[in-house]
């Protein structure tokens, strides 16, 4: 069975990440203990200081709400736009088993997008508003998605490296102070570890395969290593949102700490795979207890974020076209509901939804 042979080939370090998800979930439950009563800013501060979770109808500073919307929406968009580079290979997957695995993975990404849009909606914005913001370029998605998947090995390397980086990042978000986000992330992370692992597994088979397969695997790792490292964002001293996000416990570790953790996790995994990480300066530093490595090219990241990566326009054109092509279907379903079910209860529900969701044990 494919489940068991995937399980036998889990990348070193993955158990640890899974344990961290479990621990974060235990903390979620622990954070549910009663807290002292207070109002407004004082109540919010008490929640944050006491490691309680903030829930949708709690008072929260406008900056906290806006920051969360920005971060969760960006995360949701990354899942949804991130389907594109991988769907590129579903129809060409070289075995039926790999085709099924890849299709299930890309489907999960749509699912993760949905969990996350729901979490953002509890903050009083609609999915339509977020999609408009994406399509109009007011909200972003992760920059690595703007690189092309050029060979089958990219499917493996992309999942091993960028899903690996995402897991390192997201495991810490399971402890976000905002309850709906933390709960969504627990689910996302559980499912994401399958993504990470199938990538490692696909790459491992290539790296042990024919010379052409091995070359393909190495080439893919060469191209995806730095986009993956850049996923943690600019160094702390260049990041615009870091300090406040950390104070509010939306984010728990600095970009640099997470990047270092990722490098340290990848090095032994690359050895098991038998692929070379494309950084001649990469070596163990016994003094620091970490690997030294070459930082990504931050100017390149800035260019890609500014819209000048190889695939930015293609990705956004695809998203907009799919959305526009689907409009007649969405309109038809709305019209049908109006005729047969007394009409869709119109979606001012979004303003009401956060209130309605208070108290639901999501």
């Amino acid at each position: 069975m494919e489940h068991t042979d995937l399980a036998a080939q889990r990348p070193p370090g993955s158990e640890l990440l899974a344990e961290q998800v479990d621990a974060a979930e235990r903390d979620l439950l622990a954070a549910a203990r009663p807290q002292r009563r207070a109002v407004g800013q004082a109540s919010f501060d008490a929640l944050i200081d006491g490691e309680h979770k903030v829930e949708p109808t709690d008072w929260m500073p406008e900056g906290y709400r806006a920051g969360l919307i920005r971060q969760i929406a960006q995360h949701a968009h990354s899942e949804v736009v991130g389907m594109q580079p991988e769907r590129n290979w579903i129809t060409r997957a070289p075995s039926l088993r790999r085709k099924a695995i890849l299709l299930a993975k890309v489907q999960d990404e749509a699912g993760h997008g949905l969990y996350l849009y729901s979490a953002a909606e509890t903050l009083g914005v609609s999915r339509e508003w977020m999609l408009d913001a994406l399509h109009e370029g007011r909200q972003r998605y992760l920059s690595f998605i703007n690189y092309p998947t050029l060979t089958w090995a990219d499917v493996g390397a992309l999942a091993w490296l960028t899903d690996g980086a995402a897991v390192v990042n997201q495991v810490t978000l399971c402890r976000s102070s905002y309850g709906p986000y933390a709960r969504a992330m627990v689910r996302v992370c559980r499912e994401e570890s399958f993504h990470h692992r199938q990538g490692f597994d696909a790459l491992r088979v290539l790296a042990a395969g024919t010379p052409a397969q091995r070359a393909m695997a190495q080439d893919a790792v060469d191209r995806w290593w730095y986009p993956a490292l850049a996923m943690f964002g600019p160094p702390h001293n260049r990041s615009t949102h870091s300090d406040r996000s950390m104070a509010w416990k939306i984010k728990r570790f600095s970009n640099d700490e997470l990047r270092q953790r990722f490098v340290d996790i990848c090095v032994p995994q690359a050895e098991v795979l038998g692929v070379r990480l494309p950084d001649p300066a990469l070596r163990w530093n016994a003094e620091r207890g970490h690997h030294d490595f070459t930082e990504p090219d931050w100017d390149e990241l800035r260019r890609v974020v500014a819209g000048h990566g190889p695939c930015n326009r293609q990705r956004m054109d695809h998203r907009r076209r799919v959305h526009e092509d689907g409009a007649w279907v969405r309109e038809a379903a709305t019209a049908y509901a109006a005729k047969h079910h007394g009409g869709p209860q119109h979606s001012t529900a979004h303003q009401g939804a956060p209130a309605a969701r208070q108290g639901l044990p999501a």
Partner: protein
Amino acid sequence: MSAAPADWPLWEVFVRARRGLTHLHVGSVHAPDAELALHNARDLHTRRGEGASIWVVPAEHITATDPDDKDAYFDPALDKDFRHPGHFELPEGVEHL
């Protein structure tokens, strides 16, 4: 493009993981009507065999307590510890009580 219709309504999803367990809130979906809401909930929330039964409820049909009323709603129950069996002291040797 700006003519895109408003979002479909939001439905809260409750899943019974196995027989014998209660339905638990697991998240939400958008759908134009109840039938599609059930389909969407099934496809989104039970991809890994997590469900034996699903409820969907229009989000706007849920009436919730206001957090500002939390004290009035819930504090009065806090001082009635005689409702819990641990309130009562049992004489030594008494069982099945």
